[in-house]
């Protein structure tokens, strides 16, 4: 018979929400929007040219306020991050992406 699952105590660890995969720096409550580190999406899917018109794709690498997400959060490789940066900046120029999104 399996042991009954222990419920977390009320007022326990603040970050003790849903279980997340992957390691992280030990200690400290992890933020809710923590992203699992993974391999570069563009390498995986063999996207050679990152098109600035593909807002659906590029939008995944932009934070809520419109900032470009760092590699350490998205796992993008160096060369693709460079291309991505260019693409995002072009998309901003032609009003496909915001420079700074309103809250």
């Amino acid at each position: 018979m399996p042991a009954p699952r222990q419920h977390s105590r009320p007022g326990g660890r603040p970050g003790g929400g849903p279980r997340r995969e992957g390691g992280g720096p030990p200690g400290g409550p992890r933020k809710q929007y923590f992203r699992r580190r993974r391999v570069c999406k563009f390498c995986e899917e063999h996207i050679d040219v990152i098109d600035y018109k593909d807002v659906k794709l590029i939008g995944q690498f932009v934070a809520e306020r419109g900032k470009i997400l760092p590699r350490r959060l998205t796992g993008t490789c160096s060369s693709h991050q460079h291309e991505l940066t260019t693409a995002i900046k072009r998309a901003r120029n032609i009003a496909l992406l915001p420079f700074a999104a309103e809250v």
Partner: protein
Amino acid sequence: MRKYEVIFIVRPDVEEEDLNKLVAQMEGVVAGAGGKLEKTEKMGRRRLAYRVGRHQEGFYVLFLFEGTGDTVKELERRLGVTDAVVKFLSVRIDEELKRADKLKALRVAREAKRPKAKASASGASSGTPPAQPVEEQQVQG
């Protein structure tokens, strides 16, 4: 000859008819300045990510053509003096396309070389060591 991609936004309050006229006019500019148009695409009405002038929306039109710097210069000048055009962006794309073709050819060649070694290769080339089992944090004490 180089390949260029020019995208421009037309004011949302122009009529469909006028838009077509404008696009045809710009196509004429490209052809007149020694360009060879490959594709014209009306990407349709879209919400702008930020306010441009007083506009919150716009028609996106995309030109793909082969030409020289002078072609782009002339087209940009014409777009700039046209009131209905709110914003435009020109990008040279031939080098990117060349690079993409090269990468693709490389990949095809690699696949053909060893079609069966893929499973073992992907395991070995993943770079990172096998993930350490994450220590479960014992909170309940």
